[in-house]
């Protein structure tokens, strides 16, 4: 036989809890009691009803038919007066007795009325013209009365009061808002944000706002004619709305000897303390000392309660909610979460204030995690902040990104607003629909979805958007990608741990890393290149070079093209060449019928479309070193003509560029390293947007910028330091590049690495040697420099059998006769 479930309260908490129980196929005969003679409506929408933007029909969540369809007995308008725990019976004010097996108390709150003289009328509750703002009846009466009157006063400058004031403007001419505290919405906002909101309310909406306003008396004999404040001020009005706060309805619980403090005390399963068959949920419940007046925590409580009461999950536990709100208060965007003011001196506070526009933004960060945020006048970043706050997510090093959309169209759209066919990944042509499809097919990690759809696997700019779509599509059930922190996907360790383990076990080949460090010893194709780079950096000439660990580009020292041919880019230091060199390149291009000869962005000459099998011969004829235009390594140093010829140049940028390239040529790293030296701040060599850029400034000095980019991502480098000599530039360049090699994640370019570590910290280490590692970095990079060998010398004898054999039927492959 099904159990008898009685629910006291037919508001949002009670009805939602019953919905959750029904969704779990709970076997109950449900009886509900509600004070109000209606089905269940959305109380939050009463403001919209008052403002005339919503109809009564529109705010109902469950109409009476719903109760019928689900076999629920609804006693609307019956107030429960007492619970007999021992007999398991509730008593109604209509004399009814209803037995239960399980009981849920969801009595919600009532509107609190401050003790103001004249606010009540001995016969009819409130004085004529005074209204609370809590129920549908309150709202109806208020609308009816306001229509025929002129001036309203709203007492209470919290959320509800602001909404009431705004709504009343719809029905009468003049509204004054009185708030007893020093600033509006003082529970959610700090003084600054509150005063910004006040300015907007007054200037944009034309509502008079008085703060620090203690209402001492309601004036008028048989109807309201005004209110009097503590300082004697009288404000004439004919309508008064009291929105001074809510208090939990706990009387019935207290009268029935259930534990009541501020609210009805519940445990993590939402059971009333000490009771096994009585639950409480919503605004009337006090959980771990907290009371919640918002819907989001209520939804969470309802789920846990339903899980527990139906036996679906007896371990379900509600552990409290992090409170955040994002709403339009009286037409003005407001969002708040967590702390409204910093709690300690160590809390990092970031504030943006633009009073003319009524925009105020504040975020509070503690130990790298968002612990509070307030937005007024601009809620565009609210969703992201709420997510970061709820989940304690890592925050961008550029804190401004939390408050503003900086660059990149990818940051602006909300996933919910995008059509299904909107292209998210412009490199691989992946739509929002495809990403959502992968999520609904069961992929719940961002990395997994990226692998499956290839979204974000091109230039990578859309990754944040992909992440947000996955999170949105998974409805908050995104699983942490354990691999996100690993150096490569196939070895479960972040870079520092991985390097420590490699050193400890003296692992000098890629296969030995898999064998020793991967549980089960499984090799991973996609991890080989990153490991090869790391091991080469760590062991230099002791590295055991397994050719299969290399990407094809590194096996044959050219960049593979779309047709399987390769590009050949000879070194041209600093972009300086000579007629002899050009003649040689021209001869080679003609001799081998090179389909395209092109200047590169790095000031070199690219011979494109060279078949793999012709590479050794071309290198031999060129007899020039490799320009490394294919590897995750030091690429080029772009230069301008500098002081030799340019009439503006203040430093010999060409000579320095050539010197840098000569020293650091071929240096492998976690990502490409593109450099430039420019002879004056006009920046013809584009040094400000290079991984490392050097700018000559007047006085014989050189500025060194790091972390710049001008690819898919655009970033001006950060000034590392200014030095007086070219030698210092060369030394610090090596030190910085070595620090990057040792500490950056695989494929993490300097434009991500530098902001992640922070330019100040990098300067401490690289320039000031605060950590005492400068000498080690210098020694390590020197060892790498000494280990340099021009890979194009590897041509007389192939390094492996068939190293340069073609892999596509572009030319004749080994023809194997088929024998039957």
């Amino acid at each position, binding site marked *: 036989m099904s159990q008898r479930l009685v629910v006291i309260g037919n508001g949002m908490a009670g009805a939602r809890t019953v919905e959750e129980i029904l969704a779990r196929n709970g076997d109950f005969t449900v009886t509900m009691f509600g004070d109000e003679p209606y089905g269940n409506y959305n109380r939050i929408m009463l403001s919209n009803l008052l403002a005339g933007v919503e109809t009564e029909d529109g705010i109902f969540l469950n109409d009476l038919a719903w109760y019928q369809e689900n076999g629920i007995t609804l006693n609307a308008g019956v107030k429960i007066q007492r619970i007999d725990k021992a007999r398991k019976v509730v008593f109604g004010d209509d004399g009814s007795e209803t037995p239960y097996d399980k009981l849920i108390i969801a009595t919600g709150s009532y509107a609190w009325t401050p003790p103001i003289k004249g606010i009540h009328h001995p016969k009819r509750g409130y004085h004529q013209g005074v209204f609370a703002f809590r129920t549908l009846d309150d709202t109806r009466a208020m609308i009816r009365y306001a229509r025929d009157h002129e001036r309203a006063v709203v007492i209470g400058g919290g959320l509800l009061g602001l909404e009431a004031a705004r709504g009343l403007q719809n029905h009468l001419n003049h509204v004054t808002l009185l708030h007893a505290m020093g600033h509006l919405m003082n529970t959610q906002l700090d003084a600054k944000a509150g005063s910004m909101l006040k300015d907007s309310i007054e200037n944009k909406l034309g509502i008079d706002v008085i703060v620090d306003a203690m209402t001492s008396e309601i004036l008028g004999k048989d109807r309201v004619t005004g209110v009097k404040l503590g300082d004697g001020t009288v404000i004439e009005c004919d309508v008064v709305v009291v929105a001074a706060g809510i208090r939990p309805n706990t009387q019935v619980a207290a009268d029935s000897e259930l534990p009541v403090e501020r609210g009805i005390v519940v445990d993590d399963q939402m059971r009333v303390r000490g009771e096994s068959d009585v639950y409480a949920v919503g605004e009337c419940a006090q959980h771990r000392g907290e009371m919640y007046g918002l819907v989001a925590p209520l939804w969470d409580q309802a789920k846990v309660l339903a899980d527990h009461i139906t036996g679906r999950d007896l371990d379900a536990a509600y552990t409290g909610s992090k409170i955040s709100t994002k709403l339009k208060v009286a037409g003005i965007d407001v969002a708040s979460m967590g702390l409204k003011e910093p709690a300690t001196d160590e809390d990092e506070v970031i504030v943006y204030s633009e009073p003319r526009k009524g925009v105020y933004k504040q975020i509070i960060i503690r130990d790298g995690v968002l612990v509070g945020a307030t937005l007024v006048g601009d809620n565009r970043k609210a969703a992201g902040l709420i997510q970061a706050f709820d989940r304690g997510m890592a925050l961008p090093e550029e804190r401004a990104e939390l408050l503003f959309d900086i660059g990149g169209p990818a940051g602006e759209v909300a996933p919910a607003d995008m059509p299904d066919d909107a292209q998210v990944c412009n490199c691989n042509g992946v739509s929002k629909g495809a990403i959502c499809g992968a999520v609904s097919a069961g992929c719940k990690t961002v990395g997994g979805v990226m692998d499956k759809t290839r979204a974000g696997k091109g230039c990578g700019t859309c990754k944040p958007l992909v992440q947000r779509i996955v999170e949105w599509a998974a409805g908050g059930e995104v699983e942490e990608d354990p691999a996100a922190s690993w150096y490569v996907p196939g070895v479960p360790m972040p870079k520092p741990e991985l390097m420590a383990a490699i050193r400890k076990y003296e692992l000098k080949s890629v296969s030995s890393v898999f064998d020793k460090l991967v549980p089960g010893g499984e090799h991973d194709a*996609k991890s080989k290149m990153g490991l090869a780079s790391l091991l080469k950096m760590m062991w230099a000439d002791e590295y055991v070079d397994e*050719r299969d660990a290399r990407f094809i580009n590194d096996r044959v020292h050219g960049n593979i093209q779309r047709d399987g041919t390769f590009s050949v880019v000879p070194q041209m230091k600093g972009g300086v060449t000579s007629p002899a060199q050009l003649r040689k390149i021209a001869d080679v291009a003609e001799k081998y019928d090179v389909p395209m000869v092109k200047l590169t962005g790095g000031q070199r000459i690219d011979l494109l479309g060279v078949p793999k099998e012709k590479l050794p011969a071309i290198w031999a004829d060129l007899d020039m070193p490799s320009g490394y235009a294919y590897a995750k390594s030091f690429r080029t140093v772009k230069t301008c003509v500098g002081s030799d010829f340019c009439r503006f140049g203040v430093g010999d940028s060409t000579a320095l560029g050539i010197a840098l390239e000569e020293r650091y040529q071929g240096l492998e790293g976690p990502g490409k390293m593109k450099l430039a030296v420019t002879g004056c701040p006009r920046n013809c060599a584009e040094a400000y947007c290079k991984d490392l850029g050097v700018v000559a400034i007047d006085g014989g000095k050189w500025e060194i910028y790091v972390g710049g980019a001008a690819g898919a991502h655009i970033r001006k480098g950060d000034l590392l330091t200014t030095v007086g000599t070219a030698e210092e530039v060369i030394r610090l360049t090596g030190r910085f590049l070595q620090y990057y090699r040792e500490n950056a994640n695989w494929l993490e370019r300097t434009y991500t690495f530098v902001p992640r570590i922070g330019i100040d910290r990098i300067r401490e280490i690289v320039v000031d040697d605060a950590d005492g590692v400068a000498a080690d970095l210098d020694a390590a990079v020197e060892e790498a420099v000494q280990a340099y060998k021009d890979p194009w010398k590897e041509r007389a004898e192939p390094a492996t059998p068939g190293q340069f054999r073609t892999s596509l039927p572009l030319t004749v492959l080994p023809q194997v006769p*088929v024998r039957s």
Partner: protein
Amino acid sequence: MTLSTSASSNTRTVLGPLADIPPGEGRSYVVGGETIAVFHLRDGSLRAVSAVCPHKGGPLADGQIDNRVVVCPLHLNAWDLATGCSQSGQPPIDVYPVRADGDLIVLGD
């Protein structure tokens, strides 16, 4: 004669010496007019698949492998070497029986 018919009729074709393919790498062969990529896995075994990536025609023999998959060098799509199934939403590739017979690579059952 196409390769698939030759394979299904239990023909055996010697592709060449095993030493032609370094461990962990792949090489292309043309057999009966078709190009196939043969991989020498680090666990010692061999795999043979169609040589051309169905996505954009990349040379799969130039791809990196492990003991399970090959990754195309052009756009990094991955296929299971045993089943030919794509791991990144691409059409499957053909898989052929191949094994080492002493020092030789033998295509066919």
